[in-house]
């Protein structure tokens, strides 16, 4: 009995310690959001993340255009779902990067556009899966407009891989 109690108490204690450690990490100056970085350092850290996503997407979208043209919309939709999932992870990684204090607002806005981008991709996938061509088209227009807004927000960063350039894959 006492052993069981100790056991529970021990797990609880470890859990509390773990939670505190997480909180300490989140609140500690110098953690993800607080570290002092300049714009060049931010770009240097963000570009490999975007590069990984770019390369993954090259694989993910292989054959998608042909499928759309062939009317195999359900099949084509899976490319979008996979891309949306991969992009969600990319955004998480980008959001976790320490940001230059002077660019905080700009980067927050950019991440917001990227999140909207991810939602549009997922919704296009759903629309294609449902065979709703009109909706897929409408969403792709919004997606393109959102891409431009995202790019213009971080224009001064001189991004390469983190710049959205959909024409590269057409």
């Amino acid at each position, binding site marked *: 009995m006492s052993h069981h109690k100790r056991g529970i108490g021990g797990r609880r204690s470890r859990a509390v310690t773990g939670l505190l450690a997480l909180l300490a990490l989140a609140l500690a100056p110098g953690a993800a959001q607080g570290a002092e970085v300049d714009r060049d350092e931010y770009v240097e850290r963000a570009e490999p993340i975007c590069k990984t996503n*770019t390369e993954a997407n090259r694989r993910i979208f292989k054959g998608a255009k042909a499928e759309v043209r062939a009317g195999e919309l359900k099949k084509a939709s899976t490319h979008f779902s996979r891309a949306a999932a991969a992009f969600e992870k990319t955004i998480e990684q980008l959001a976790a990067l320490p940001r230059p204090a002077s660019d905080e607002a700009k980067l927050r806005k950019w991440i917001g556009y990227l999140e909207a*981008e991810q939602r549009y991709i997922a919704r296009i996938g759903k629309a294609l899966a449902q065979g709703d061509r009109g909706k897929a088209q409408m*969403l792709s227009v919004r997606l393109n407009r959102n891409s431009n807004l995202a790019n213009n927000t971080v224009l001064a960063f001189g991004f390469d891989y983190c710049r959205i350039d959909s024409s*590269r894959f057409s």
Partner: protein
Amino acid sequence: MRARHLIPLVAALALCTALPARAELSQQGSLIVGFDGTLSPTALPRTDPAPVSVRVAGDIKDSAGNPDSLPQLRRISVAINRAGRLFDKGIPVCELTSIQPATEREARERCGGAIVGDGHVALQVRLPAQEPFMVQANLIAFNGRSQGGRKLILAQVYATEPPGAFVLTFTVQRRGGLFGTVMSTTLPQSAHEWAYLTHFDMTLHRVYRYRGERRSYISAACAAPAGFPGALFPFAKATYGFDNGQRLTTTVVRSCRVRGK
């Protein structure tokens, strides 16, 4: 600058409806270039090309808003999507000597039948021992004589205040790949000493009759996949080359709607 991208929208490009024109921007250091493109009308047949007008426009600026520090734009290359086709049979040809030297009015009188478009140019004039000043000029595009199998577009840039002119000779090439028609020009040597372009726009459009048939200098179809009422497509790509070696590329994505079935 390499053109990579974060989210491939390959299939999205095969979709869509009307998209408002918006200049796409690119930046390198403090140099910012914008590129805009418009296709009109946007409602087109799915397969048979129909007459269209194509407008391309570019802006060059410094991030601090100071035109005095802009490098000189020496080369412009505008590549149009392969869906757009140029046809110039039956259009008179204008010789360079007819429009240079010439005023805008003289050029129109001598080569009016060869006009295939028009536009505007804004440039900063930098002359020794003078403060730089801005000049607005009109641009008229004439169908030029082919050279080495390549079509030419002679774009006369003429300003009235102060009076001055030069001709931009665009070479039109057909190429394979996504952007099938490439129009390139270099700033003439005579303008190197003083002309710093900050804006240009050119609209190409000419509908005429040839052997009894209605023809258009530029035609395009809206190649949307079957069942889709429109398409989103990379419309044009501009590459700007500057005297300091900087080179920037910008692509614009636009949309069309299918007219009829």
